[in-house]
């Protein structure tokens, strides 16, 4: 699918500090998760894409336009900033209506009502933003970003401060937007939530791209990293012996009834395990890959550098 946002050889530095270094990446329709530890350059990358910061080197193209040169791109591009910043003296409705007026939408009041309903904030719309919880502010910011019905949404840590119910609602909303063909870029440090919503993951470390792809793709690309599988069995020793004989495993570790297997191709081993267990006459109550979560992928990426 065609990329709506193209970043080419992008670098951004602040004095001696390099925040983003030679990043080339494209973003297309669907939800893309942008991951990285603090200081990885995620926020800077989003701000440069949004036109809020000038690239020190390289270029950004949004729907074929440079956001620094063509403000009309903001009819299709919005950002939910990471900061908790909102206009505390405004009510939720006033905040969203202001966004609608500044965006030049035809019916600011009507559009504000629509997006407030979308983020389920109509009940608190007449209250001052200063009295909102962190999660409610996040939803108000998302509502404000949705006002122009943008094709591209950049969401910098949009789930910060949201309670579990609000998180679930927002994740559902982002997935729906992605499924509807919008380009949704979500940065987050809550990795399992990104895993739940993102079709594609981009990991950044020290201002550089560390990996791009689905969680499984990224994991598979790291062939030099052994993967772990946990197996629960009343006779792990027999199973371990049989596994070593096959030559498919790098190592095994037994702790009571739990067998931990290190393998370069964990998926293949996991598929073969039931057959091997039958051959040995050993029961298995659990087979679980221990390190397929984004947490572990991310840890590998960071520690591997």
């Amino acid at each position: 699918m065609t990329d709506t946002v193209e970043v080419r050889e992008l670098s951004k530095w602040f004095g001696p500090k390099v925040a983003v270094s030679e990043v080339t990446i494209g973003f297309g329709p669907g939800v893309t998760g942008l991951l990285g530890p603090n200081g990885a350059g995620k926020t800077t990358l989003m701000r440069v894409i949004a036109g809020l910061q000038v690239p020190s080197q390289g270029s950004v193209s949004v729907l074929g336009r440079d956001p620094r040169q063509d403000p009309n791109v903001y009819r299709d591009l919005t950002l939910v900033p990471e900061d908790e910043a909102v206009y505390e003296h405004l009510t939720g409705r006033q905040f969203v209506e202001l966004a609608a007026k500044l965006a030049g939408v035809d019916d600011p009041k009507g559009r504000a009502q629509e997006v407030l309903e979308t983020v389920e904030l109509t009940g608190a719309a007449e209250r001052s933003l200063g009295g909102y919880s962190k999660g409610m502010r996040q939803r108000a910011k998302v509502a404000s970003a949705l006002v122009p019905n943008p094709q591209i949404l950049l969401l910098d840590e949009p789930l910060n401060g949201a309670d579990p119910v609000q998180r679930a609602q927002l994740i559902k909303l982002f997935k729906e937007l992605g499924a509807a063909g919008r380009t949704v870029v979500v940065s987050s440090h809550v990795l399992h939530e990104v895993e739940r919503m993102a079709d594609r993951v981009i990991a950044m470390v020290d201002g550089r791209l560390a990996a791009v792809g689905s969680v499984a793709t990224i994991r598979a690309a790291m062939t030099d990293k052994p993967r772990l599988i946990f197996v629960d069995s009343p006779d792990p020793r027999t199973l371990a012996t049989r596994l070593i004989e096959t030559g498919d495993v790098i190592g095994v570790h037994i702790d009571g009834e739990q067998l931990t297997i290190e393998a370069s191709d964990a998926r293949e081993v996991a598929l073969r395990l039931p057959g091997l267990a039958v051959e040995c006459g050993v029961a298995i109550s659990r087979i679980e890959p221990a390190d397929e979560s984004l947490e572990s992928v991310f840890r590998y990426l960071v520690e591997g550098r």
Partner: protein
Amino acid sequence: MVLAMHLYRRLMRRSRVFWLVLLASVPGLIIAVAGIDAGDLDEAIVGIMLSVGFTYAIAALILTVSTLRDERDAGTLPYIYMRPMSRLSIAISSILAGVMAAATIAVGGWLATVLAGLAHGADMSVLLPGGAMLLAAGVGYASVFVPVGYLFSRSVLVGLGYLILVELALSGLVSGLAQLSIWRIAGSIYVDLLGEKGADIPDELLTVAPGVGGGLAKLAVVLVLGTSVLTWALRRRDAL
């Protein structure tokens, strides 16, 4: 206009407005408490307006640098910046908001002067032009200090540097520098509007010649320059 009104309302926080109107009212307070002879009243009021009235410049600085600086510091600038508006429109709206805010403070300070002057029996022909001077100064200061507020994190210090160095200290020492003094440009309008009553005052203006037309023309230049610099900064500098 939506943006200008939004920025104006944000600037007009009650506590801030109260203290800044108070600062701009210092000439009025001095006139109110000073024992001024009836014969010297007009001259005294004009003298106080041109000298002590400079407190308005400080009030205008504190207020107008906040127009976009507040948005940057609070992290709310993206809500303004990421809109399908030309950067020139944003610059014009921002300076307009600064001018409206400065004018609000000016009216407060001027009313204090009028009330104090009337209490002493002063003529409105002396008091009215004072309002025009403050409004003119507000236009000039907003044109300079709104861009300064966007460009510099320590914008109040930068602005004070301009007020103290250029307008107070160096204007009297370096020939021609008074022409860059917004206070004296506004003062030139004031003195011209005073007519004969302002005939003995021009010393305060240094090398700036009294004249409404000339003063307005200079302010127009300052306004165009300020808008241009702010437009450039919005296009070329990081917004966050």
